[in-house]
């Protein structure tokens, strides 16, 4: 595997001013910019040439203004992906109608209809971007250990975060954040030693995130290996999104939501007598809460379990060596969850003793319309859980017995290879197109499960199947050009290759902040639209991360839209970048 060198890179930063701010240079209001001149610019531009209204040349770089945004053209850029950069509202500008431009020390001042923006390009290393993202996440996103995203009361103002919040997939997203932090710690430990302050700080963050994930395995108090989707505390409003139970002594009762009403279970009381391990309680007690303040979310999906298990595998390998207490909790949690799934016929049961909506790994589900296509992923997940259980507990017993049963008698290993075929079969049956049927969130689940299987399986015949199954996902995963996927893939399938320039582009072209502000992607002149016949629109060519909508790993990176998770009223977590960076760094793929 060829190592990829990541070098310091110009990273964009926008600072917005009112027109009367004294920091704004007076010349900005009187300067007359040149008319656009495209001679020598033989490269795609984000706006049609007719749209451009003004031009500023400074330091060999051409800045072109239009009513849609600002284009920076650098003919001598070291990488082709840097030759053109595009700045639009809301990410880079508060208003895309550009009135004037003036050179600034690291960029330009831009006068717009509603204010002034200083656009700067600052040389940063990927590690510095990681740090910026992490600091922002720890300060603004972390919520009693849960790390997904946070809503803002005021646009762009991170200090205006709501004190509460939740995400449907908190457990999964926090797991990925945790994995990034675990590998950061592992890198620092290797590079600087266990006692270096940087290592100590990284370890604290990794442990906190892991504990938060583990808490979801106990927070419900059911004691049966169930896993909660997320938890909130009593001073937070209950989201009308799914099923929530509030703990009250040894019982928990179902809160009123639309879903609960539909199911007729509002007020339903269920057991919550099983204790939360003391080690994990600090996540809420440190903020002055008790068990009775906990509201947890049920109806957990297979997604949560899969990402949780990847996290626990990483934690087991890197955090437990000198932490027997954590080791014991992880072993206990894994044993409980996998036993629960096996004992219940390969489902995760909820309050009723029946399966949750989406946590099913059994053949009965695989033979349903939904499950038929899901079978390739879910069979891989189930085998992955068993492999992780063997790895973490150090035992084989019923884990191996079940694994062998599923592989040899139920054909689960073969099923892992069927993803592309079954999806294509579905497309033919429904006369739909492949791209409009892809569940992009499944990419991260397939990546987790199949990476785990490829790294843990020693049997060559089975390994061959898992790699074949992994490759069946690549035709769509590869198009995301996300190193968080690509690195896992080449670790699992060492004969495969990834695009080096795309890796460099991805790490170089991220914003400093994870404020989910939208961009001016729709209507770009340089990006072809690929529309399915049923109207789903994608970019034909993947736009760099700093010019496309901000999201987690669960969205179509090519989707043709300006904004995803909340815009300027939302701050997303650090995991997207940090997960990829620290895995790549730890395994020596990048340096």
């Amino acid at each position, binding site marked *: 595997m060829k190592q990829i060198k990541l070098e310091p890179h110009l990273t964009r930063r926008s600072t917005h001013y009112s027109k009367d701010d004294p920091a704004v240079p007076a010349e900005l209001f009187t300067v007359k910019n040149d008319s656009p001149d495209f001679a020598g610019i033989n490269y795609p531009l984000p706006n049609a040439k007719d749209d451009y209204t003004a031009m500023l040349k400074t330091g060999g770089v051409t800045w072109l203004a239009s009513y849609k945004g600002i284009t920076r053209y650098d003919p001598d850029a070291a990488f082709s992906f840097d030759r053109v950069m595009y700045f639009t509202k809301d990410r880079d500008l508060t208003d895309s109608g550009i009135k004037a431009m003036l050179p600034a020390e690291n960029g330009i001042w831009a006068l717009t209809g509603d204010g002034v923006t200083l656009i700067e390009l600052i040389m940063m290393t990927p590690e510095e971007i990681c740090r910026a993202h992490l600091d922002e996440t720890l300060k603004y996103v972390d919520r009693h250990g849960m790390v997904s995203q946070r809503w803002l009361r005021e646009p762009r103002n991170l200090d205006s975060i709501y004190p509460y919040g939740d995400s449907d997939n908190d457990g999964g997203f926090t797991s990925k954040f945790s994995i990034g932090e675990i590998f950061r710690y592992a890198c620092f430990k290797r590079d600087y030693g266990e006692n270096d302050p940087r290592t100590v700080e990284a370890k604290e963050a990794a442990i906190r995130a892991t504990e938060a994930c583990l808490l979801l395995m106990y927070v419900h108090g059911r004691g049966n290996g169930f896993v909660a989707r997320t938890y909130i505390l009593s001073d937070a409003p209950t989201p009308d999104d799914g099923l929530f139970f509030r703990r009250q002594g040894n019982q928990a009762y179902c809160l009123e939501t639309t879903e609960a009403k539909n199911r007729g279970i509002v007020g339903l009381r269920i057991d919550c007598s099983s204790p939360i391990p003391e080690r994990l309680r600090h996540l809420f007690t440190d903020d002055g809460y008790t068990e009775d303040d906990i509201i947890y979310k049920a109806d957990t999906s297979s997604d949560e379990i899969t990402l949780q298990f990847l996290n626990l595998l990483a934690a087991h390998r890197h955090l437990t060596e000198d932490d027997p207490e954590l080791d014991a909790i992880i072993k206990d949690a894994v044993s409980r969850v996998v036993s629960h799934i096996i004992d219940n016929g390969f489902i995760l049961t909820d309050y009723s003793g029946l399966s949750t909506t989406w946590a099913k790994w059994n053949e009965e589900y695989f033979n349903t319309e939904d499950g038929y296509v899901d079978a390739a992923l879910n069979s891989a997940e189930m085998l992955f859980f068993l492999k992780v259980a063997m790895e973490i507990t150090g035992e084989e017993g019923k884990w191996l017995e079940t694994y062998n049963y599923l592989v040899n008698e139920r054909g689960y290993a073969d099923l892992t290879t069927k993803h592309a075929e079954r999806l294509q079969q579905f497309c033919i049956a429904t006369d739909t197109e492949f791209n409009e049927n892809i569940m992009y969130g499944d990419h991260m689940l397939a990546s987790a499960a199949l990476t785990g299987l490829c790294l843990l399986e020693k049997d060559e015949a089975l390994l061959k199947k898992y790699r074949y199954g992994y490759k069946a996902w690549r035709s769509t995963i590869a198009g995301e050009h996300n190193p968080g996927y690509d690195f896992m893939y080449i670790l699992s399938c060492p004969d495969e290759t990834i695009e080096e320039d795309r890796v460099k582009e991805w790490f170089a072209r991220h914003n400093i902040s994870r404020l989910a502000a939208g961009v001016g992607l729709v209507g770009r002149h*340089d990006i*072809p639209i690929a529309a399915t016949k049923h109207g789903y629109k994608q970019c034909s060519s993947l736009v760099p991360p700093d010019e496309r909508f901000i999201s987690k790993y669960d969205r179509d990176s090519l989707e043709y839209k300006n904004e995803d998770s909340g815009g300027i009223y939302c701050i997303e977590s650090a995991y997207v970048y940090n997960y990829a960076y620290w895995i790549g760094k730890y395994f020596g793929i990048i340096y």
Partner: protein
Amino acid sequence: MNKEIHLIGNAHLDPTWLWRWQEGCGEVLQTFRSAVARLEEYDDFIFTCSSACYYKWVEDIDPELFKKIQDLVKRGKWVPVNGWWVQPDCNMPNSESFARQALYSQLYYYEKFGRICKTGYNVDSFGHSGMLPQLLTKGGMKCYVMMRPNIRENPDIPEGLFWWNSADGSKVLTYRIPESYAVNGKKSIDESIDRLTDMAEKSNHGMMLFYGVGNHGGGPTKGDIEYIKKLKSDGKNLVFSSPDKFFAEQCKLILDLPSWSDDLQHHASGCYSATSLIKQLNRKAEVALTNAEKWNTVAESAYGLGASTANFKNAWLNVCYNQFHDILCGCSIKEAYDDAREQMGLALDIAAKEENKALLRIAAGIDTWIDGVSDTVFMTERHHCRNLKYPRPVAVFNPLSFPVKTCVRTYHPSKAVYDDKGRAVVFSNVRSSRSNDSHKDTVFQADIPALGYAVYHLVFDDSDIDVTLADSDVSAGEYYLENSKLKVRFDKSTGAVSSLITKQDNAEHICPGSFVPTVIDNSKPDTWAHNIFKFHDVIGTMKLESIKLIEASGARAVIRTKHTYGKSYLSQDFILGTESESVRVKTRILWQEPLTILKMPVTIPGSNPVSTYEIPGGFIKRPCNGEEEPALTWGDITAEGKGVALISNAKYSYDCPDNTLRLTMLRNSIFADHYSDRPEADFEYCDEGLQNFEYAIYPHSGNAETSDVQKEADILNNQPVTVPLGYHKGSGQQRKSFITVEKENIKLTAFKKCEDASGDYIIRLAETQGVPCKTAVMCDIINAGFFADFGPLEIKTFRVDSGGYVTETDFLEGIVSD
């Protein structure tokens, strides 16, 4: 439902084979009339028929019948399949041909029937190239029916239903017909049903039975339909159906199907080489039409020329028709090739006229004015309009999407050649094809931008102008040619290339014995070479008659060899151009040896050789097992990081026994000699007589596909065009590119107007090396500049509107909607 036998009533129609196209057309009309009659008689009977060409014939000749068919299609009783013009050969048309097969046919189906064909259907074609899944899906077809090779010819390919994958990731649900495509008569129907029932039971899904009299048309007989109805009423698990219905129903089942990620070969391996005439016409027509349409589109968008979309369509449809498998495969009767020559000739003529019109329109806008030229003053000695006081401007046009540096020719001698910046250019005055006038032409090295032109200035050889000359890297001796890239040595006793050294790494690429023209016995195989997959019975080598150094400096050096065998001769000009990385071989063969094959071998050193071939839409690696392989413009053998490719502008067949790659130059067979049942007769033979073509020898390091082999092949097949100019003022600069594609592994395969008269443009690009990438594409003349992502061997089609905004579409140009 899941184990039903779907009965596909059809009539296999060969519009040309042992008859000419006129008879085929009549056969289509009769078959369609018969099918309509059967459909009117039997409520549950369904008829399936492929090939848009047939429907067009019927529409033109019998509109009333066509209206009935339209109504039957609407009612689901008549099911058109295969969104292609005919059932083409599926090995030799290039990817653009497959795009046009789909484009014109699917749009026709859409216009006439309100629907496109969702099932590809080539039940008789002689093997199926490895990238067809992509070519099918991008033409709107997710499912495929094929039959050849059969289970005896290749038992490894799954029988019945399977997933067929191509290297770009495309996937089509494919049905390999286990029985005939034309089962008829009670006994055959019974046997087929028994076998298919057994297969359905084992596979746990349904099967298709194709019944109806075929080849020369016909279709299901009343007797067969009655018999099937009886079997149904007797409780047999049968259903009158269509391929569309079959696939849709199978996709509702739990399927556990095998996957196949390779081509589907071999059947009729002799067809890759039989009848050189049609092969050469196909290559010429594909190239000529693609290039002419590019230039027409440039001239339309930037120079006010009218679009010739309809002309190109008509020309392409002639090409599409003659890609019918029994025509392009060279196994039809001789008279069919008289027809093919005329139809392909018409296509070539349209291309030539359109290209000339476009190039002259573009050229007219170039500023070639030289101060001091009061007018286009000329003298008329030597049959030319000449001005001896000033150099003559010549525009050289490159149709490819990458810059090309190669030698070009003009038809008069020169004293010097300069480029648009006034720099001297390497040139030679070489022997012309005429005996009149000066006997000399100018060959000079042109350096032309991507899909663009460059103007050169040629000083007549008898001009008084003082000139400067450029240094050449070319040298030669009696038995060697050399330039800055290559050193080529010849064996004076055999005339063969005996050494081929790349100077960059001082590496020898070939072994002794290479390039000795080898004659092989072809008396056993029939025209198709049914059940024969290797041609190895060597009966001799051609004898060297002469070897002569013809040109030794300037733009190129040339050694000419002449070989004989029996009554035949082979003349080869081995040409090494300045800075060229390949040796071009201009070849003339007069062949008069019945039932023989002529092959040109190259043997390379090294162990574990791999052979690689260009195929439609990509390349494929094959074992070096000596089986005959189909290929487009190049075949390659590589071992231990060094390889040699043989590139041609007319051939489609190679074999590769161990370390030797052999280009099949001709294959002499009796026309339409089926299973070699040969009564006494004074036969005429395909590949009898004179043929001219070029091939090239390209040595390289590394893998074939990531070398420059595709570029070399593209240059050989798409040679620049020189257009002599006058002296005129204009706004056009003397060097201009109309489309640039940033990445070298992405090539432009089409630049055309959209078929829907919207005024939009179509740009089609293809990845050629199996290396995914992102590329920038610039086309200022239509105000377009955009990025495109490509997976390995992916073909992408882009539609550009009047504002330069771009939509990714497919071969159907975004015209078809639900």
